[in-house]
C-alpha cells in the first residue's frame, strides 16, 4: 500500500492517533511488523493497558492537538486481558460517539475496532482503511480552527467582542 514514491504530490496526509490496548491491538501492530506488512505511516500509537482505560477526554484532546482521525482498538469481545475492560469501553463509545455526531463531528473520524494479537493483517487493513477514509474526508479544519484563540488580537476567536475595543 501507498509506497512513498507512489504518493501523489501535495496529497493530504491525515494525522491519526491510535489508542490501543497493550495486549491485543498493540501486539497485533507488532505482529504486522514482525510479518513485515507494509502500511501507511500516518498513525501515532498511544499504548494503554486496556481500551477500558481510555477516557473520552483523551480523544477530545487528540482532536485539539490536530488529529484528523482517531482509532480506538482493543481485544475482541470476550478476549479482554482484564476480562471486561473492552465491554466497558464499548459502552462508553456507544454514547460518546453519537454525542460527537450530534455536535456535528463526522463519526468516521473516530473508528473503533477489535484487533487481536494474532491479527497483524487486520491491523494493516484497519490502518490503511482509516487513513484512506480520513484522507477522503480531508483535514479536520473545523476543529483545528478552534485552536487559534483569535488572530493576533484577543478574546474568543468567534466572539465578536474580540475584535472590538
Amino acid at each position, binding site marked *: 500500500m501507498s509506497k512513498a514514491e507512489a504518493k501523489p504530490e501535495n496529497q493530504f496526509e491525515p494525522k491519526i492517533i491510535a489508542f490501543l490496548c497493550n495486549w491485543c491491538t498493540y501486539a497485533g501492530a507488532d505482529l504486522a511488523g514482525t510479518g513485515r506488512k507494509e502500511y501507511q505511516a500516518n498513525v501515532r500509537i498511544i499504548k494503554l493497558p486496556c481500551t477500558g482505560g481510555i477516557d473520552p477526554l483523551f480523544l477530545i484532546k487528540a482532536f485539539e492537538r490536530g488529529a484528523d482521525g482517531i482509532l480506538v482498538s482493543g481485544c475482541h469481545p470476550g478476549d479482554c486481558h482484564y476480562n471486561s475492560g473492552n465491554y466497558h469501553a464499548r459502552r462508553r463509545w456507544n454514547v460518546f460517539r453519537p454525542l460527537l*455526531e450530534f455536535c*456535528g463531528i463526522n463519526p468516521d473520524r473516530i473508528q473503533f475496532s477489535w484487533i487481536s494479537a494474532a491479527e497483524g493483517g487486520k491491523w494493516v487493513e484497519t490502518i490503511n482503511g482509516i487513513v484512506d477514509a480520513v484522507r477522503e474526508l480531508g483535514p479536520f479544519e473545523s476543529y483545528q480552527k478552534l485552536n487559534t484563540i483569535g488572530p493576533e488580537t484577543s478574546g474568543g476567536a468567534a466572539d465578536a467582542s474580540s475584535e472590538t475595543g
Partner: protein
Amino acid sequence: MIEELRKKAEELLKNGTVKVVFGYGEGSVPERTRPVFITKPEDVNKLTWNKYCVYNLTTYLKRQETRKLGKPALILKGCDARTIIVLLKECQIKREDVYIIGVTCDGVGDPLAEKCKACDVHTPLIYDDLVGEKRENKEVPFEERYAELDEYEKLEEKDKWEFWQKQFEKCIKCYACSNICPLCFCDRCIVEKNQPQWIDPSAHPRGNLSWNVTRAYHLAGRCINCEECQRVCPVDIPLNLLNKKLAKEAEKSFDYRPGYNIDDELAMSTYKEDDDEDFFK
C-alpha cells in the same frame, strides 16, 4: 395543597424528624419562586407551591452550606425525585438521611417547561409523604419523549457543527450549568484539575467545546433531564439537548433510564455482552 405542605413541614420540624425543609418560596417577581430553607416551625408560611416551582431542590443536597443545616425534608416533584434514586445509587446520600415530601405535579413553567411535556412521573416514584392527589404515571412513547431532538438530529453534519459552535461560542464558563446540577457533585470538577489541564478553562471555542461535551458526557446514563442546566444558563445555550441526546442513546442502546428503579445497574458502570457494536470495524 400549599396548606397541606405547610402543615407537613411544620409537623416534621416540630416532631424533630427533620432539621430543615427545602421548599419553594415567593420570588422577586410573581413569575418566579425561589428555594427556601425553613428551619423553624413558625416560618412554614414562607412555603408556597405554584406552577413556577421549576427548581430541582435536590441540588442542595450536594452543597455543604445547606447540608450543614441538618437532616432535610425536601419537597420534590416526580422528576426531582428521580434524582434521589440516582444519588442513592451513586452513594451520595443515604435513604435515611433525607425525608421526601413528594408532590404530585401536572407540569411547571410558563410556558410549560419542555421537561413536563412528556412527563411520566406526575406522581413521584419515591417519597415518604405524598402531597396532592395521586396521578397516573403513564409511560410516554420513546419517540415522543425525545421528539425535541428530531429537528437537530436531522440537520446535516455541517449545520450541526455550526449550530453548536454558535451555541458554545456564547459560553462564558460561569459553570452555572454544573453548579446547579444535582448530579454534578464532584468536589473537584474535571475542569478544575490543572495537572494536567484536560479542559482549557478559557471561554474560547476550543475550551467551550471540550467543556460542554465533557459535561454532557459525564451525565450520560445519569441525567434525569430536569433541565436545570439549561434554565440557569445565562447565555441561553440549549444544554439539555445534549443531555437528552445522551439519555436517548443510553435508553436505545442499554434500555436504561436513570432514576426509575433503584435496582437497575447504572448504565455506565455495567455492560452487556451483546451491547451494540455495529460501529466497530
